[in-house]
């Protein structure tokens, strides 16, 4: 295994970007936005948020100067890769009136190809979960499938855990596992800016050949290993250990804690929309004023909205308590029955980006504590 670990320089990383762009791909990666790290098109390693890191707390995020000039010295931010794989809004089909006839046409597909650079362990795990949900059953979401098949994943082992990260306790990180083409570990950029790299697919191997690399030394392999180990030990929080969370939630559907959290919850839907595994959408029909052309559009939806559970005559989940419970029990409990694994990867986004800082790990703790205690 170790024999497969190689080393590239920052120049070779730049070459990787050049090669991918040369092959016609959109290269997407972390860049500095307005006080946040966002995922956008990149052309150069200088587009990365060099020398920046983040401080994350429940309901708080600040971008600050880091101690060194790392490219990847921060943890996950407000953007989620699903914005490219499972976009927030797409048109499904359109129709137009021609005399007495109605002509229905599928909307143009997406034929872009992508390379994501800087995908974290938790995010890879989340992509696997969305693969399962959107392409793993009888009904395949072809929009997702096409984009997914046209995407190369270049992952990064986390050198720092964020204040709301808890991947270690969810078994999804910080060491990248899931499906990647290349996985990088950024060594301290003090003298030479080096990355230990490993290929996870034939496409990744070919890329390495093209940009050039050298075998990693024992010392470099050890250093890379200790970086992720240290990250695992400095997780911002954790899902309570020794608790069978799916069972716990299933057994406590009438726990008073749901009502307590509902008093703080704004039912604003931020937690679901930033979650890398949440996949729900709704459709809206639009028509022009003349009644000549129509379109059906799909956009992200959330179990926190009233329309989400609207059936004839009204909504099913009228109380905020029932909506919060739906969200959390689906993430941590019923997702397992439905798709065979937990719906949470421990990225902590729902905690950081909740305007009132509701913390899913603390909510589990509260139910577990009150139950056992």
């Amino acid at each position, binding site marked *: 295994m170790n024999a497969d670990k190689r080393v590239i320089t920052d120049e070779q990383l730049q070459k990787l970007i050049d090669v991918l762009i040369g092959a016609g791909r959109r290269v997407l990666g972390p860049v500095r*936005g307005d006080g946040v790290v966002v995922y956008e098109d990149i052309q150069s390693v200088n587009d990365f948020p060099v020398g920046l890191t983040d401080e994350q707390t429940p309901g708080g995020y600040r971008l600050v100067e880091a101690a060194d000039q790392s490219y990847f010295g921060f943890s996950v931010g407000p953007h989620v890769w699903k914005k490219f794989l499972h976009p927030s809004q797409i048109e499904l089909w359109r129709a137009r009136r021609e005399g007495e006839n109605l002509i229905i046409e599928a909307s143009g597909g997406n034929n872009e190809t992508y390379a994501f650079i800087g995908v974290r362990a938790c995010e890879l795990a989340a992509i696997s979960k969305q693969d399962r949900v959107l392409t793993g059953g009888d009904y395949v979401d072809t929009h997702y499938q096409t984009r997914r098949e046209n995407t190369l994943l270049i992952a990064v082992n986390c050198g720092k855990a964020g204040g709301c990260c808890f991947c270690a306790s969810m078994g999804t990180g910080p060491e990248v596992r899931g499906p990647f083409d290349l996985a990088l570990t950024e060594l301290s950029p003090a003298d030479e800016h080096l990355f230990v790299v490993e290929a996870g697919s034939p496409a990744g191997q070919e890329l390495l050949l093209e940009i050039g690399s050298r075998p990693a030394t024992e010392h470099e392999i050890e250093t890379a290993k200790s970086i992720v180990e240290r990250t695992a030990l400095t997780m911002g929080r954790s899902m309570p250990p020794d608790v069978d969370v799916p069972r716990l939630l299933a057994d406590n559907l009438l726990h008073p804690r749901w009502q307590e959290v509902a008093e703080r919850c704004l039912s604003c839907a931020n937690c679901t929309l930033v979650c890398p595994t949440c996949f729900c959408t709704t459709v809206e029909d639009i028509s022009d004023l003349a009644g000549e052309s129509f379109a059906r559009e799909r956009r992200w939806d959330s179990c926190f909205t009233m329309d989400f559970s609207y059936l004839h005559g009204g909504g099913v989940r009228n109380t905020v308590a029932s909506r919060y419970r739906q969200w959390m029990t689906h993430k941590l409990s019923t997702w397992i029955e439905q798709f065979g694994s937990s719906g949470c990867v421990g990225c902590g986004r729902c905690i950081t980006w909740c305007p009132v800082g509701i913390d899913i790990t603390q909510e589990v703790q509260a139910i577990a504590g009150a139950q056992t205690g």
Partner: protein
Amino acid sequence: MTGRQIRPRLAVWKFASCDGCQLSLLDCEDEILGLAEAVEIAYFPEATRAEISGHYDISLVEGSITTAHDAVRIHEVRRRSTKLIVIGACATSGGIQALRNFSDVTEYARIVYARPEYIETLSTSTPIADHVRVDFELRGCPINKRQLVEMLGAFIAGRRPATPAHSVCVECKLKGVACVMVAHGAPCLGPVTHAGCGALCPSYNRGCYGCFGPKETPNAPALSARLSELGMDQRGLARLYSTFNANADAFRQESEKYDQQDGQD
């Protein structure tokens, strides 16, 4: 030409308001011709000279009720309309002029007008729905042009308008706008505010001002608690909820809480 034989008759009515919402309709340059084809604009004093006559299939009502005369006139509008649609914060909640509901209006009149005895007004500004049955409410101060066209298109086609009542936060996330409250500590009414503007202010790094009024199931007390943690004082909270939709239930109840406490301090 189109499959439609009879064009619905449309009227636009004005009550106490600034005209901004009606102007949104005139501002639909690209769509206005389509609209003129799709409906007969039978009464719209801002744009045409047509007289009030007969019955209207769709009435758009802008403005709130602030005079005894208007309180009677709105019933006449209701009688003449099949669908009565109210547009804008004035018509849906009473508007900025509903700040009078919290004070003494004769005092205001005395300060503002040279001859206050000429001013005949009610002591409150109230939404249209307090007076007559309303078929649809389009929120906003002012309304959003895209939503207006969408709503008219929906009524003409006989389908449900796509004007969701969820938070502005959803619009931030659809656009990829990072939350200004989380990332900058900026006070934002988005989590309790009805969507519709496309997250205009957060897109420019400002907190939401609540132009579209309370969303479905708003939890203003929880938001206020968080804003206090972020450093907003009682007076700030009272003012935050007391703008274009000051009279909307969820916002009024919240601002009154802090107004009273402010008075006691």
